[in-house]
């Protein structure tokens, strides 16, 4: 290959994460602005007045564990303690369900270790009636909204108590009663759906707003951009959350464009308010969500919040992160552990202490253990028939057409012929 004009050959840039297995992780050059430094615009301000907020980081908790600056939501100690407990419950729940998968009691699980603040603090900042369109790592929304743990575990086990009748992969919850939309598993499809829900709410003169979540990796999906376009066009009362946990399975955030800009900056091109927030700072997440909810509820328009955080474990039970990233990354992540940070803040306020923390941890562990016991009494995946065999065909349509009735009969005949000990009752 040559060129008559004697030009230098082009080169293709393929992003590469800074640390791979065997490398020492060092995040010392990560820019972390001091807590309290970011200004807090009026909720009625037009997005073009504060585009800087898409490139900095809203942080409230400082190194001395104090809440500082204009974003300090000034929450009561009771609220802070509730948030702490909800985050601790998420972590304990994750731990037990991860172990349950390893014990062969279910097929799949996804932890949210290190990201608990993103969902829990948002749930506290939203109204209970606001509608959530989550991705698969916002179990904190359900726990903070009071969904019984046993119901969540029943779903994970696909057992007789599973309200989804064993039709969905574990953790793909659907909880309309807690304002929690059915999780898809296909990425970012929930984004335009949240916009549609929000548009419907606005067109009906309702007061409820919608919030949605996706990972930084799946901002690359077309649905993300369709959603932002729709949202800005109709000023939909919706909050877009991008959980930037740095990793999409084994692909680091550079494959979603993080080498070039922030994810909050995606908002700017759409004329949407964009905030970049310390996702491991529960007070910052709360304050940003509250601010965005106020904008949405007063018809100012949508907000995109990038939660800068870190996925401290694998994507799911199906991958081993030590195969693609430095094992030192989780421990050297400079923004700390959200639970530890909120606990330290409460202690600094004189509203908490070690004995109470230990008592809470024990209580939470016991609550999760009791829920697991109750759920396992309803069965675990693969041990016996938890759902009637013919329920396989229920819910494809509201009314079952002839071809499904025929196929259902085929299946029943096939099972009878197989001699397998299915109990169809």
């Amino acid at each position: 290959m040559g060129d008559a004009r004697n030009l230098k050959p082009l080169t293709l840039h393929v992003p590469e994460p800074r640390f791979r297995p065997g490398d020492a992780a060092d995040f010392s050059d990560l820019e972390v602005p001091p807590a309290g430094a970011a200004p807090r615009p009026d909720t009625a301000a037009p997005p073009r007045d504060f585009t800087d907020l898409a490139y900095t980081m809203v942080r409230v908790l400082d190194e001395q564990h104090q809440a500082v600056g204009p974003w300090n939501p000034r929450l009561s100690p009771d609220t802070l303690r509730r948030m702490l407990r909800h985050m601790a419950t998420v972590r304990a729940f994750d731990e037990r369900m991860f172990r349950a998968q390893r014990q062969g009691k279910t097929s799949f699980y996804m932890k949210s270790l290190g990201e608990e603040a993103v969902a829990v603090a948002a749930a506290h900042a939203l109204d209970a009636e606001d509608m959530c369109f989550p991705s698969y790592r916002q179990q904190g929304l359900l726990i903070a909204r009071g969904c019984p743990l046993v119901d969540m575990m029943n779903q994970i086990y696909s057992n007789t108590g599973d309200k989804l009748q064993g039709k969905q992969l574990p953790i793909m919850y659907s909880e309309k009663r807690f304002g929690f939309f059915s999780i898809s598993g296909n990425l970012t499809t929930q984004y335009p759906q949240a916009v549609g829900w929000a548009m419907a709410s606005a067109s009906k003169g309702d007061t409820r707003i919608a919030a949605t979540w996706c990972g930084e990796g799946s901002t690359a999906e077309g649905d993300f951009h369709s959603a932002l376009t729709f949202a800005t066009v109709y000023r939909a009362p919706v909050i877009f959350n991008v959980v930037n946990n740095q990793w999409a399975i084994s692909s680091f955030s550079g494959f979603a464009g993080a080498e070039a800009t922030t994810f909050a900056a995606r908002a700017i091109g759409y004329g949407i308010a964009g905030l970049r927030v310390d996702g491991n700072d529960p007070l910052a997440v709360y304050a940003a969500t509250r601010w965005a909810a106020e904008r949405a509820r007063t018809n100012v328009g949508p907000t995109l919040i990038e939660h800068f955080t870190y996925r401290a474990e694998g994507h799911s039970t199906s991958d081993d992160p030590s195969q693609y990233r430095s094992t030192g990354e989780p421990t050297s992540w400079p923004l700390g552990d959200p639970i530890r940070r909120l606990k330290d803040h409460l202690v600094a306020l004189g509203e908490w202490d070690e004995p109470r923390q230990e008592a809470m941890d024990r209580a939470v562990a016991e609550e999760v253990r009791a829920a697991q016991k109750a759920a396992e009494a309803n069965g675990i995946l693969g041990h016996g028939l938890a759902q009637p065999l013919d329920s396989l065909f229920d819910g494809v349509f509201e009314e079952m057409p002839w071809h499904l009735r025929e196929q259902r009969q085929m299946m029943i005949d096939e099972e009878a012929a197989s001699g397998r000990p299915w109990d169809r009752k």
Partner: protein
Amino acid sequence: MTDVIDTPITTRMNMIQAINSAMDATMARDPDVIVMGEDVGYFGGVFRATAGLQAKYGKTRVFDTPITECGIIGVAVGMGAYGLRPVPEIQFADYIYPALDQLVSEAARLRYRSAGDFTAPITVRSPYGGGIFGGQTHSQSPEGIFTHVSGIKTVIPSTPYDAKGLLIAAIADNDPVLFLEPKRIYNGPFNGHWDRPAENWSKHPGGEVPTGYYTVPLGEAKVVRAGEAVTMLAYGTMVHVCAQVAADTGVDAEIIDLRTLVPLDIAAIERSVRKTGRCMVVHEATRTGGFGAELAALVQERCFYHLEAPVERVTGFDTPYPHSLEWAYFPGPVRIGQALKKILKD
């Protein structure tokens, strides 16, 4: 089930007017029905199917959308989750592909995956099919892509009367429906003879349409011509082409307009094929893996011992839809006539 008509008053309509009238009648009764899509608002749609609806029902119920089909269907799914009954338009069926994930993985699967916690009661309208010199991006018949998907219904009318009644039934249905409109017959039935003067709906019985609210039930085929020699299964534009071929050739064909592909009226098909002993399937869409293949398979599974000849498929070719060679591609009277000869020769 039979057609339920709430007023005996009828008038002449073309298919566009009938579709418009269906949305009008539905929106007047149900404040949760909303219409959206590219150019459907103030302008009333590129085919005028939504003309006058925005003026009548306001901008929050009838509005233009950004040009993102993925967004249009995704937003409709979210509106359905809220409790609305959206009727999004995809301007041409050829443009539906960016919305595939939202249709296949979301709208069609929502009831099942959430065990009924959420549903997607949306009706996606889209003009489809060729015969208008629309080239490859304004002529396709993608119905077979959607009939292959569990959880979505596919409806295709062939007359203004059916278009209105079926569309009202589709909007009232609590499951997602893909409502494909054969745009070649928007203004009049097309008999396949492209070189003859175009007809309009004024003389066709299907152009006499009740002015009020009525439904044609989903899942019911219609015998448009009774006959003994051969069963012709068709839908959309091809119903009229088949009827013309029967008239031209004098073959005593029984022509069944399927009207709904999923769920299919298998009983009507079986009844007819058992009577005639011969079956031909006709569609504009490409041949391989088309809905005709499903029909042929069903007929041989269920009527094999009544068949006196192999099931014939008459379809478009497995090429992109051409522009200048449109009439060479289109399964017109000659292709259908030759297939008829073949199926009747023994």
